[in-house]
């Protein structure tokens, strides 16, 4: 039983560092790390819970957790993939079926409560001085700022008290040529800049950004094929497109390319030129979206693609214009793993809590892209399973013990990345997000589509259905910018004038 290992033996820093270092690129390959470090534990005494092993208690389980369903489709052929999958199912099932939740306090429906205070203090601890072993994240510290500020905000904590400290901390990261690097003296990078700008927005500190220099720098990473490189001379991928468009829109920078942008030589004049087409090229034969054309479809890139398109225009306009929507919906739906209920990032890979946001967040965007005459009625009937995701996050991904934090899966350690995106995922699952056409009149030169979202909490009936207590609701998360709604609105107003 993974959870009964009481006192976490002094959190092996190595493992945590591994977890943190590998997401410097915005995308987690958590499954891989898991396979490496999984040897100790979880399964010796519990045995494989299927097929046919009777459940100890006769609690009424949702359909996907009933024994008859769990017993379906166990192909005999054993491969690396099936072995890894079987281990994960075995470590999750006792938690999912409430046989092993004794150490948590339970809500009205017998599921654990959200351990809000512990997760918040876990995130706050990430901002303390870090030991030398953290050198390996020296190029991705801006992510720590974002994951903590965003994660704390989603948990309902006030982060404005970090404003002065954050501004001071990121000042040496801003380069005179525009943008932010991972640290002092490091080259500007789309990921680091995205993370810094969002963290600053969360604390109300965007004023310190040199917007004009930022505009020039973004011009230097725009490519003639329509996409964006992560840094000058670095790789071109879809993260660049989403990060750049987010920065541009929040700061209300001119859409026109700066005069010195290299892509002007190829006839481009605007940041949006050929961008939708480039994103469209990333859709693969599977229906999902890859990091770059012809690569493998991956959940984190699906979010980047949908969010980028949702910045360009209303989702119902831009998403069907560039993507095969039914194929993408089918691909996304297939990423919810059974019986775990969370999402995997790729076909035949393992569930990982971070995809609660990367894939879970796709639903807000793509459901807004479906035609009005579809079956999605006014009552907001969904095409995915919120209750299953909530159960996975609440039962399998909360670290027990004083330290809190959320984790990829029970056999892994919590980290800021998984905590932030687990809580964001919980918000996608608990709340409703609606795109309102023409809510925001488009103002000259600014893309306003992404400012047209509103959010609402679940109804009482939904909370019963999804087994959520009111006290465990988390804050609204903006479906495109992954920030609190109010923070996005404040940024919209702050730079309404445009110009420099």
């Amino acid at each position: 039983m993974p959870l009964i290992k009481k006192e976490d033996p002094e959190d092996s820093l190595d493992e945590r560092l591994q977890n943190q270092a590998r997401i410097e690129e915005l995308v987690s390959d958590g499954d891989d790390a898991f396979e490496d470090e999984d040897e100790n534990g979880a399964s010796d005494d519990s045995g494989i819970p299927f097929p046919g092993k009777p459940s100890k208690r006769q609690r009424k389980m949702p359909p996907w957790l009933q024994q008859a369903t769990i017993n379906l489709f166990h192909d005999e052929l054993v491969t690396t993939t099936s072995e890894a999958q079987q281990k994960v199912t075995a470590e999750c099932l006792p938690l999912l079926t409430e046989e092993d939740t004794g150490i948590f306090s339970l809500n009205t429906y017998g599921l654990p409560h959200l351990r809000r205070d512990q997760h918040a203090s876990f995130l706050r601890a990430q901002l303390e001085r870090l030991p030398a072993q953290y050198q390996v994240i020296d190029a991705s510290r801006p992510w720590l700022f974002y994951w903590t500020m965003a994660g704390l905000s989603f948990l309902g904590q006030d982060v404005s008290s970090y404003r002065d400290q954050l501004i001071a901390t990121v000042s040496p990261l801003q380069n005179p040529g525009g943008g932010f690097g991972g640290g002092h003296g490091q080259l500007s990078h789309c990921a680091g800049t995205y993370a810094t700008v969002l963290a600053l927005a969360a604390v109300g500190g965007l004023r310190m950004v040199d917007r004009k220099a930022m505009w020039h720098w973004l011009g230097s990473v725009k490519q003639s094929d329509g996409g964006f490189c992560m840094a000058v001379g670095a790789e071109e991928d879809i993260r660049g497109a989403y990060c750049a468009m987010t920065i541009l829109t929040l700061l209300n920078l001119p859409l026109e390319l700066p005069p010195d942008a290299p892509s002007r030589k190829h006839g481009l004049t605007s940041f949006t030129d050929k961008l939708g087409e480039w994103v469209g090229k990333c859709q693969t034969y599977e229906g999902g979206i890859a990091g770059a054309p012809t690569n493998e479809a991956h959940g984190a890139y699906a979010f980047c693609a949908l969010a980028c398109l949702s910045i360009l225009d209303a989702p119902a306009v831009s998403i069907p214009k560039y993507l095969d929507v039914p194929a993408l919906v089918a691909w996304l739906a297939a990423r919810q793993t059974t019986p775990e209920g969370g999402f995997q990032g790729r076909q035949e890979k393992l569930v990982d809590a971070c995809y609660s946001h990367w894939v879970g967040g796709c639903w807000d965007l793509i459901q807004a892209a479906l035609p009005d005459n579809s079956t999605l009625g006014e009552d907001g009937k969904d095409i995915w399973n919120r209750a299953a995701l909530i159960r996975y996050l609440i039962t399998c991904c909360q670290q027990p013990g004083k330290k809190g934090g959320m984790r990829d899966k029970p056999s892994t350690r919590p980290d800021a990345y998984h905590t932030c995106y687990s809580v964001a995922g919980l918000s996608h699952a608990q709340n409703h997000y609606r795109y309102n056409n023409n809510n925001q009149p488009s103002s000259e030169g600014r893309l306003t589509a992404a400012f047209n979202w509103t959010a609402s909490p679940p109804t009482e009936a939904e909370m019963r259905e999804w087994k959520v207590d009111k006290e465990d609701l988390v804050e609204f998360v903006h479906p495109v910018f992954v920030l609190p709604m109010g923070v996005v609105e404040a940024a919209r107003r702050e730079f309404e004038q445009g110009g420099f």
Partner: protein
Amino acid sequence: MGKYSDDPAWADVTPLPTDEGGPNPLAAIAYSEEYEETMSYLRAAMAANEFSPRVLDLTEDLIDMNPAHYTVWLYRAHCLFAINSDLKEELDWLNETALQHQKNYQIWHHRMLILDKLDSCEGEGEFVERMFEKDAKNYHVWSYRQWLVKRFALWENGELEFTEKLIEKDVRNNSAWNHRWYVINGREGEGVRGITDPRIREREVDFAEVAVAKAPQNQSPWSYLRGIARKGGMPLSSLKDFVSQYASLEQPDEVRSSHALDMMAEILAEEDNGKQQAGAALDMLAQKYDPIRKNYWEYRKGMLGLPSAAA
């Protein structure tokens, strides 16, 4: 006191120490003295735009301490080209580094820059294959492999057989399936037909069908078949006999794969008067064979436009 400050070869450089941004920085890292010093000299070198053999050594030191440091990698590449360094030597060093830091991302971009300049990919296929022994789904390595195939026109140098070997090893390795798709269809732009060529299409359908037989609940070959239908102009209905071995309405208790039942629903929906039956297949998925996706199957049923689809 330090490797660089004590070295006469660096005596002309004034290091630029880390600016922490004030007395109370957030998440400040307590750097080791060695790292702090090396970074200070790198900052100074970069500020002076220095490209030299000593800067190459400096970047190597830093990469050893922090292989995820993208700035150092980019600067190193710049430096290598600026001083016409021996790129074969660079590759040897890179081989060791890559094996130590398998999940590192920058290494692969760097390698790409080097090989492109070298204009040779000798031994590269084998090297990449070794990387797959530890993790056969490493996203960056696969993306690198795609680049290799394209840059050096390796389309017909055993690449298809390579995907076959990896799929044979683990039929659920979706990355290998994706690569297979790429090898076959990656030259459409150059006018080389992939699955739109009927002979190739037939071969690939056979290949996927054999894979399904090994593990019917493995989604990879099902997606591959669906991709062939979608992109290759093949009606899904041509797969009906095959699919019915794994899921058919006549034997509702003998479904061997939810993916087969999904595909059957789609095939039926395209038939004249098949929509009722398609709806029945989707009901089976929602109620029995894949209840976690009940909402999705109901959505799909709604899309059929059946009369009075109430409940």
